[in-house]
């Protein structure tokens, strides 16, 4: 009874409280979603009145090699980034999940990159991986890889630039994943681990049969979340390679940006955005569907 009175109907108060936020969400969220769909059927250069062209933008994908290239790069990047960052962070989280001296310092070292912006991260790595004066090339040359005359050109080689971007973004995201995994690891009941140990389970068996299944929900979340992020890669490409060398690091969001804001082909760019949205939705549904069969939910 009491509970019901505070949650009672009050249309005026409800709308008055929520209105400012709702207006913002509608104007800068809902309206653009619909408008963007509309634009994808238009020829629109952001200046002249738009012209309705039906499905032409979507048909144009067929004859656009750069679009295909961008999508392939996004695919390659996602297939590399998602497993690398998740497997890496699982390993790090397990190493960090113990009571030893200095553990907080270790944790801080792993977490700090998460707060650093993508641009600041890119600047650090541009310098670290510099072909002429970079620390990384010096270390590599110690191991006999490359030479001062022929250094490893991380961002300047069309074979390696995309992989170098994978490296940069894994460094930036690993701490995020580790935090998720640590929270999940802390939730593993110690009784369960003790019971398994009493039953004679070794370290590996304990990890494989008890800990890992309990990390299923966290892993599924990270797979979905990292894939969505990976497909939307932009900042690092813009700052580090501008899609180059050649078109070796062109990705859809970078392509979309150049189309809309540098070439004034905004209708086509909006169509790309919607294709990306469709790809993300389909991929997420597949991942959640597969995950549902594989992941064990304790509660």
């Amino acid at each position, binding site marked *: 009874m009491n509970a019901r*009175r505070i949650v009672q109907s009050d249309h005026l108060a409800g709308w008055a409280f929520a209105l400012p936020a709702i207006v913002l969400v509608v104007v800068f969220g809902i309206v653009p979603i619909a408008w963007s769909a509309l634009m994808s059927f238009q020829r629109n250069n952001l200046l002249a009145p738009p012209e309705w062209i039906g499905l032409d933008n979507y048909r144009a994908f067929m004859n656009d090699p750069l679009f295909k290239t961008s999508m392939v790069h996004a695919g390659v990047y996602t297939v590399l980034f998602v497993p690398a960052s998740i497997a890496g962070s699982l390993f790090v989280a397990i190493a960090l999940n113990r009571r030893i001296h200095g553990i907080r310092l270790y944790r801080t070292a792993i977490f700090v990159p998460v707060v650093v912006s993508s641009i600041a991260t890119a600047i650090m790595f541009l310098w670290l991986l510099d072909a002429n004066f970079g620390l990384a090339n010096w270390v590599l040359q110690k191991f006999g890889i490359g030479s001062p005359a022929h250094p490893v050109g991380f961002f300047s080689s069309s074979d390696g630039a995309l992989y170098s971007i994978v490296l940069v973004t894994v460094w930036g995201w690993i701490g995020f994943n580790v935090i998720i995994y640590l929270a999940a690891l802390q939730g593993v009941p110690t009784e369960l681990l003790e019971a398994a140990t009493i039953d004679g389970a070794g370290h590996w068996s304990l990890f494989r049969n008890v800990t890992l299944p309990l990390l299923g929900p966290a892993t599924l979340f990270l797979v979905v979340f990292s894939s969505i992020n990976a497909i939307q890669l932009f900042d690092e490409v813009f700052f580090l390679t501008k899609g180059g060398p050649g078109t070796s690091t062109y990705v859809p969001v970078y392509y979309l940006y150049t189309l809309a804001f540098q070439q004034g082909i905004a209708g086509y760019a909006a169509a790309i955005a919607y294709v*990306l949205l469709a790809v993300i939705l389909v991929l997420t549904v597949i991942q959640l569907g597969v995950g549902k069969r594989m992941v064990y939910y304790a509660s």
Partner: protein
Amino acid sequence: MSAGIDVREPVEQILAPLPDEEPPRRRFLFSGWHLMLLPLALVMLAPMVWMLLTSVQTLAETEHFPPVLPSGVRWQNYTDVLQLSQFPRWFLNSMIVTVVVVLSNLLLCSLAGYAFARIRFFGRDVVFILVLATMMIPFQVVLIPTFLIVRRIGLIDTLGALIVPNLAGAFGIFLLRQFFKTLPVELEEAARIDGASRLGILFKIVLPLSGPVLATLAVVTFLWTWNDFLWPLVTISSSNNMTVQLGLLTFQGAHKTNTNLLMAANVMSIAPVLVLFFVLQRYFIRGIATTGLKG
């Protein structure tokens, strides 16, 4: 996805001062995990340490191969950045935008979150689903129309372009609504009987109980706003109105070969979020753990 896994307890454990709780007998026992963790931590810190070292080098030292450690600490790089570029202006712009956006999110999302959690009003559930929908949509889908809307309002190339669209967000509304729903309703009911207004209840009873979740929202919003790049990139063109992230881009273009200055500028661009991280680490981690598990 909103299975509602409670992460508060695990978060407390991540942050618990573990070493002091060790039984004394094991205190001096060396753990083999150090052999793995120490190199790992060094690799993760290397890019930042190298940036710090380069930021106090002379230009000649940066152009030396094999790389050398700085012979002395050249603070002048930092003052040079502040004097040769508009860095102070960019920093101020970022601060203004970030502080306004954080405060506004705290206020507007509290109001909306409370309404969605506690008040029954016409169309509430439909509107809430729409709010959630905007959270799922990738930014590039709304990028171009949002640009047109902001241009129509006349905010292009002003700080307003960075502030107004971000005054409130679906994430904050959702986060606070979920938290308010967990609070016991009896307290509010008692205040209601004593004649308190809804606004009074929100500000005098609900928000004082919501410190941690408000801090989480503040930290997450601060990071997003300070570090944002794509939106400032499309809306801001004049140097006077740039944020730090855009400023770095400009600075890098203008001082490509002065790596020591670029690194000094980079250090200063990271400083605020780093300070925030060390002071509010608890809320930062909670922010990630909650976005993570309740995303």
